[in-house]
């Protein structure tokens, strides 16, 4: 598989009260189309990732709604996979290119989350939980807190290990002008912030965020650099060489273990095999750190470290910018922000910019192979992509 990431566009992430879902989508998609040196008439299909706009703003049919912003008359789709909606839309767009149905497609991920109260957004997000979880009054902080507590009991993972994830990702976000929280925090601040759901404090959780990301994917064999003027050439074209989705139960309690996400293992295995690489070949990754424990679980389940060693792995600094395997250089969901359906797109965009050599102050030197890991629910849907230059 070799799908060209022909263009990328990303809005600022944050509480963007003066921007609608359509403003954000228009901005990100326009930037992606310009980056690809295309016009909207070259786009044959539009894939729109979104989880909750129908629920919160009563607007469905988002495929057509976003396509019509560009007067695109080809095919349009809305893709929903909770927080993995973005990765899932990219995966489906790739399948359409591999099938030969289209040659150039636009994938947009957008979410508008800050227009409603915290209890309304908490309820809306629990649409990605099971019915039994909703009836128990569970929330996503609650579900991941159960995983964190079990990991702590079984492997000796500590609050300091969790805080280290937050401190690292805030450091990365401080180098990213698109991040919702572009500032550093100390371990002390993370540990002493208000408790939200034992053992989590405020800085263990990703925020409620508005934002959009867009990519142009192409099966055409014209390298991007040839299509652009020399002044816009970048270090190299970036291709998606692996794309896999795996599924598990929606309900956390129905799974065998609370200390692993089997769908992550399965999707990573398939994506890496498609790309013809080993997991040890990965230079950089964006993983789904919706809560600090989720980054620890991701590193273990992706195979970057042994099961139970994720906390210690973080503290060693291996995954910090400058380390052997930088993780979440965008700031991750924790500090860059988590507009749920836009997150999968942002991950692809961050890795693309890193592999192009255009990541600015947070550039990872000589990165050639990157991985994205996008999770829906508490692990029911996982999408893994491998990108190479």
């Amino acid at each position, binding site marked *: 598989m070799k799908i060209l990431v022909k263009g990328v566009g990303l809005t600022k992430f944050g509480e963007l009260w003066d921007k609608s879902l359509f403003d954000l989508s228009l901005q990100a998609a326009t930037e992606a189309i310009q980056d690809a040196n295309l016009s909207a008439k070259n786009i044959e299909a539009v894939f729109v990732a979104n989880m909750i706009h129908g629920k919160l703003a009563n607007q469905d049919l988002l495929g057509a709604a976003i396509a019509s912003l560009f007067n695109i008359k080809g095919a349009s789709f809305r893709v929903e996979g909770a927080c993995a909606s973005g990765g899932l839309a990219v995966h489906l767009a790739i399948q359409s290119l591999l099938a030969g149905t289209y040659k150039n497609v636009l994938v947009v991920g957008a979410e508008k989350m800050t227009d409603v109260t915290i209890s309304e957004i908490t309820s809306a997000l629990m649409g990605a939980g099971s019915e039994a979880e909703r009836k128990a009054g569970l929330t996503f902080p609650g579900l991941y807190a159960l995983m964190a507590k079990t990991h702590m009991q079984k492997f000796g993972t500590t609050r300091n290990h969790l805080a280290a994830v937050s401190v690292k990702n805030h450091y990365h976000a401080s180098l990213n002008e698109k991040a919702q929280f572009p500032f550093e925090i100390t371990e002390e601040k993370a540990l002493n912030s208000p*408790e939200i759901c034992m053992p989590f404090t405020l800085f263990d959780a990703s925020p409620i965020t508005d934002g959009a990301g867009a990519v142009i994917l192409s099966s055409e064999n014209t390298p991007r650099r040839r299509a652009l003027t020399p002044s816009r050439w970048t270090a190299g074209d970036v291709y998606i060489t692996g794309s896999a989705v795996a599924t598990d139960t929606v309900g956390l309690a129905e799974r065998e273990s609370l200390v692993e996400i089997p769908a992550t293992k399965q999707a990573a295995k398939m994506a890496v095999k498609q790309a013809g690489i080993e997991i040890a070949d990965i230079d950089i990754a964006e993983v789904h750190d919706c809560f600090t424990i989720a980054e620890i679980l991701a590193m273990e389940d992706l195979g970057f470290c042994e099961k139970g060693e994720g906390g210690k792995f973080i503290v060693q600094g291996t995954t910090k910018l400058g380390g052997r395997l930088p993780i979440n250089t965008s700031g991750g969901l924790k500090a860059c922000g988590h507009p749920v359906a836009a997150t999968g797109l942002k991950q692809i965009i961050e890795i693309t910019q890193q592999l192009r050599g255009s990541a600015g102050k947070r550039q990872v030197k000589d990165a050639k192979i990157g991985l994205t890991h996008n999770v829906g629910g508490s692990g029911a849907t996982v999408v893994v992509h491998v990108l190479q230059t």
Partner: protein
Amino acid sequence: MNSPVQIWRQHKTLHNYLNKIGKLLVWTKILVAPQGFENQVPYLVGIVQLTEGEKLPVQIVDCDEKDLKPNQKVQVVIRKIGKARSEDVIEYGVKVKSI
């Protein structure tokens, strides 16, 4: 809020769980609640494994957090779920209490 028909359908199977015994595997305390649960904050939720093997996510009632321990023996009870508005059908569901 579920419709009256959904609640009626779901209530038909509740008795299958009543009085069942299990153990509490892990729990946490919810401080930010979804709609309908705001007036219960803070409340305890956890995952319980019934003697028959099935695992359930449930609220833990009638106990202090400090008295809970891993593998705590619990019993399923039927209680009101969330807060219904005055014109709504009151919804019931399974919770557990420590024994």
